[in-house]
């Protein structure tokens, strides 16, 4: 029965394929980039659907210097990397950190932001985590162990929210879940903060840059706390995602990023959106 069913499906889809999927032009085509449009200040959406933020600005400049035509579309985070891996999109700019695991299925440009990840809590919860203001490199086993066990102690029996399949969810599942901390994963980024403010979560974890954007709007009710983490499974900075093996596009964009780093454009963009420099020297 399974054989007959799949044949049946295929027959139906063949018709649709003929109607929908024309061959894509190789020369002078518009590259399709995607972003979530809900990860401030990296990328956000205006009521009329326009995408804006650090990454739309960055991509415009990169495209100008690398000399390609592109279109930036909104796409749910769930399935974004899969979409690039499948060739559905040419690239993704969504604060995607370069990790070994992701490098198995996609390639990246050079990194354009660094900076670690930390926690946010509601002020009225009275919860504070140890190590605020210190940065821990996950490559350093001893420092990691000390810091993680102190945070796990403070969060024992509590619930931490995080967006699904991010470096932060990897971190939480690797280091905190085995020590009695409940991890709750959300398909969309903003929902994590929503549930933090609603009191459904005791803490939320995200990148420092994303948390500062959230705190800017909610400085009376929420605060950042705990050590910040980077390196190891949390990867090596944020890069533009391209399809596996698309070296040509990745190299072109890396070169553009390098020239932007050299002439100060990258830092200027960072100051504009983050009010601090979170970009690396390329």
């Amino acid at each position, binding site marked *: 029965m399974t054989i007959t069913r799949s044949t049946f499906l295929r027959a139906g889809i063949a018709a649709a394929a003929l109607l929908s999927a024309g061959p894509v032009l190789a020369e002078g085509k518009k590259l399709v980039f995607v972003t979530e449009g809900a990860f401030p200040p990296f990328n956000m959406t205006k009521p009329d659907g326009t995408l804006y933020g650090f990454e739309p600005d960055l991509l415009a400049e990169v495209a100008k210097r690398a000399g390609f035509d592109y279109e930036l579309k909104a796409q749910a985070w*769930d*399935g974004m*990397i*899969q979409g690039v*891996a499948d060739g559905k999109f040419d690239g993704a700019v969504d604060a995607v950190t370069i990790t070994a695991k992701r490098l198995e*299925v996609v390639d990246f440009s050079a990194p354009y932001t660094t900076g670690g990840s930390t926690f946010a809590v509601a002020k009225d919860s009275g919860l504070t985590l140890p190590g605020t203001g210190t940065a821990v490199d996950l490559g350093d086993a001893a420092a990691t162990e000390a810091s993680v066990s102190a945070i796990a102690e403070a969060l024992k029996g509590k619930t931490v929210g995080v967006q*699904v*399949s991010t470096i932060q969810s990897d971190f939480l599942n690797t280091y905190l879940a085995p020590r009695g901390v409940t991890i*709750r*994963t*959300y*398909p969309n980024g903003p*929902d994590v903060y*929503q*549930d933090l403010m*609603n*009191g*459904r979560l005791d803490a939320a974890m995200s990148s420092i840059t994303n948390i500062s954007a959230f705190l800017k709007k909610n400085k009376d009710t929420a605060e950042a706390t705990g050590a910040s983490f980077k390196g190891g499974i949390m990867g090596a900075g944020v890069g533009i995602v391209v399809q596996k093996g698309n070296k040509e596009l990745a190299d072109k964009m890396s070169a553009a990023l390098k020239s932007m780093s050299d002439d100060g454009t990258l830092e200027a963009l960072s100051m504009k959106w983050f009010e601090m420099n979170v970009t690396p020297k390329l």
Partner: protein
Amino acid sequence: MDLSFIGTMFLRILGGLPLTLNLWGLSLLGGAILALGLNLLRTTRVGDKVASAYVFVFRGTPLLIQIFMIYFGLAGFGFIRHSVLWPFLREPYWCGLLALVLNDAAYTSEILRGGLRAVPRGAVEAGRVSGMSRFTILRRITLPLAIRQALPAYSSEVISMLKATALVSTITLMDMTGIARAAISETWRAVEILLSAAAIYLALSLIVTQLSVWIERRLSPWQFQRTNR
């Protein structure tokens, strides 16, 4: 396709079966009780209006929006966060279950209403003549006949609810679909994972279909001679 990967995923997704079964069973139970209540409500004129409005809203909007409304919408009100209900509404599980119960009740109440309409007046009169109380008539005559009549439609609703439970994965619950979605975003091997999950749901729904055929036959002894359509 990689069979050992599918096997691993199959087992992992089965880990969500208890939650799926739990939500499925309890939402049908809660929905049936509420549906009966709605039909009793319909005996008064005002109650009839209330029940109609309820059914109109819950059948006219997607379940997904009902789930989000209860999970995110209600939590936006301070007075709800400070009420006695908050310990329940704080948990995704109770929000999901509540949405499923409310949704199922709207559909089930209409199915039950159809069944009640089909109960012959004579049967009820016969009960009254033989001195049964209103409650006894409801319990011994009206409901059994109505339920028998509503059974085919209700078995579809039971399967619909199984499929509906898959939507609670959108509010962080780790039912079978939630586990499958998480596995997809970890491994990026969507097709194998989705087919594994689909197979489990399909098996459950086929069991329900067979069960309902069997029950229908048992409840229709007078039709033994003409079971072939």
